[in-house]
């Protein structure tokens, strides 16, 4: 049975996560994370206290790639999080692993590079290198995911719900196109000129993040819960906490058998009609050439 972690944007919504199925809450600030809405430092401190008060674990997203110039700031932030007594961080930059080791930081680090963890050989190697945990990449078919979980038991995490990140850049794409600085972090979308699907695009002061559909795993959640998966993540980037809490309740319902996966999906679609979903079962093998693709 996996641990379940859920991302919450606002401190006032933490009280709604006092559910036995939830192991921990994921938080984010704005600067050091990929999130477009972030908590201030004092809010993080307060939130961690509240989460511990609920008997849950507190994880922080520290999931950007950092430039050489930012390293002192990153170090200060990691120490601040230690002072807040967080239980772990989710990170994207391998340098964070080394910095945590140097600082003897005292909380766990879960490596989540989004694309690079597509096989169990690499994940096993990272485990042997002392990395505390890894989030399996989302660009592989489900059969590969199960193989990885089996080969590296009680170590892997999987994002079971949330927008699928498909590109991350240090460039500020919207500012460049519009030739005008501004806050482009909320409600911007791209649509490829010969396609219909909306791709959410978030630009912040330190880069851009492009997303595809929202991944959902209602049909697979029970099976995943019977594997040696260490942790399941219900992530979110730009949708409301109300949406996330609704999602959490629906997964809980599917896990305890009070509703079916189909009912859960339908209910979530009714809750917010604008969200486009990709079933985790639909993640396909990708190919190298046009003919096979």
């Amino acid at each position: 049975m996996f641990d379940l972690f859920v991302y919450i944007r606002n401190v006032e919504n933490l009280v709604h996560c006092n559910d036995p199925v939830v192991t921990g809450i994921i938080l984010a600030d704005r600067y050091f994370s990929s999130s477009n809405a972030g908590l201030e430092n004092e809010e993080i401190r307060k939130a961690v206290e509240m989460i511990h008060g609920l008997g849950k674990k507190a994880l922080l997203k520290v999931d950007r790639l950092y430039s050489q110039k930012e390293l002192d700031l990153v170090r200060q932030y990691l120490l601040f999080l230690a002072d807040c007594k967080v239980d772990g961080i989710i990170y994207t930059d391998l340098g964070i692993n080394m910095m945590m080791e140097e600082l003897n930081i005292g909380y766990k680090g879960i490596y989540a590079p989004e694309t690079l963890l597509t096989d169990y050989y690499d994940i096993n190697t990272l485990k042997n290198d002392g990395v505390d945990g890894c989030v399996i990449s989302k660009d592989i078919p489900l059969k590969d995911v199960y193989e990885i979980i089996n080969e590296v038991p009680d170590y892997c995490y999987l994002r079971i719900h949330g927008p699928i990140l498909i590109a991350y850049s240090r460039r500020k794409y919207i500012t460049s196109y519009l030739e005008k600085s501004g806050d482009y972090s909320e409600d911007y979308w791209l649509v490829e000129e010969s396609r219909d699907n909306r791709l959410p695009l978030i630009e912040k002061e330190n880069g851009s993040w492009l997303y595809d559909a929202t991944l959902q795993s209602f049909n697979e959640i029970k099976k995943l819960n019977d594997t040696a998966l260490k942790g399941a993540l219900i992530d979110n980037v730009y949708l409301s906490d109300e949406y996330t809490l609704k999602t959490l309740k629906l997964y809980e319902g599917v896990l305890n058998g009070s509703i079916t996966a189909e009912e859960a999906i339908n209910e979530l679609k009714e809750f917010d009609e604008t969200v486009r979903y990709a079933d985790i079962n639909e993640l396909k093998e990708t190919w190298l050439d046009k003919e096979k693709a």
Partner: protein
Amino acid sequence: MRTELLAPAGDLDRLKTAVIYGADAVYFGGKQFSLRARASNFSLDDIKEAVEFAHSYGKRVYVTVNIIPHNSDFNGLEEYLRKLEEFNVDAIICASQAICDLCKRVAPKLEVHISTQQTTLNSYAMAYWTSKKVDRIVLGREVTYEELQEIMQIAEIPVEVFIHGGMCANFSGRCTISNVLTNRDANRGGCAQSCRWNYHLYHGDDLLDKDEYLFSLGSKDMSTPDYIERLLKVNVASLKIEGRMKTAYYIASILKGYRLLIDSYYENGKVSEEDLKKADYYLSLAANRDTFNGFYPGVPDEKGQLYNFITTASQSFIANVRSYDAETSEAIIEVRNHFEVNDELVIMNPNGDDVRFTVKEMFDEKNEPVEVANKPMQLLRIKVPVAVNEYTFIHK
């Protein structure tokens, strides 16, 4: 130690061209385990021949094993690495911890270079790879020159940086737009370059498209002659040119440009304005897209973006030389682009300056005079003012 000039090669011919035109090392992919699925890529026999050829000129050979592997991709990998070692390949370029460790274990004579696909941007990320005893790190192209200076002061292992060629708009290895929009795997060699496509930009329901051009993520190409002196000053180990799918003519002209800058720096302690002018000339010969200095001056703004993406094939390359008769000063050339009698053409040899000449007359294989060369791959005989060889390119 002098900084290496590292060139790409899509096949054996291009590898030979790169070696002859001044690359200190050449990199390419094998048939498996390598990105750039559409590059011709090298069979094992090709790899063996490539190493023998390059080593005979004192040049090094690196083989890309830089896929982000899936579970099944490891089949046959151990045997492949052993073969590369047996053929005396100098290094592999990889992007996977497991491939790195496997190579160190089963083919320890091979150096391991960490690919830019790992997006190493800072000294702590480098420290991770240093702890794994890799031999070189290829930095992410998003590192600015100022950041590079800082990194080089504390780097414990050799550092390679890109100086020229196409750029991923997003962090290399972290982009799956191609996977999602075309089902072609960007990180295993199938990238459809969907970043260069046109997109409509919305805020809520408001369409923000400009009249002149649509939104695109695509990047201009990198071209950095202005930064060569600075890069040499901070002692990077290697200056890398991108483009395993580029033509031999492209590789030759780009190498010619950067070679002269590097040689001038080591001979004179600096790169002069005259050197830069000459280099610009060579770099412009094969240019087919707008270029910029990458991230070296800082995070790019709109001037680093490529909107209205069109690749225009360069028409400047006129012919290859197939053979040369020193007694008659005549060359048999293979036509690639249109030219006519009385046109002024330019001979580019691997060494020395380009030589201009006017085509007075030319003859086909039946010895019939030809006025207009407009049949690609046609063999023609022309008189040339200097000795040429099979590595000579004729351009306009």
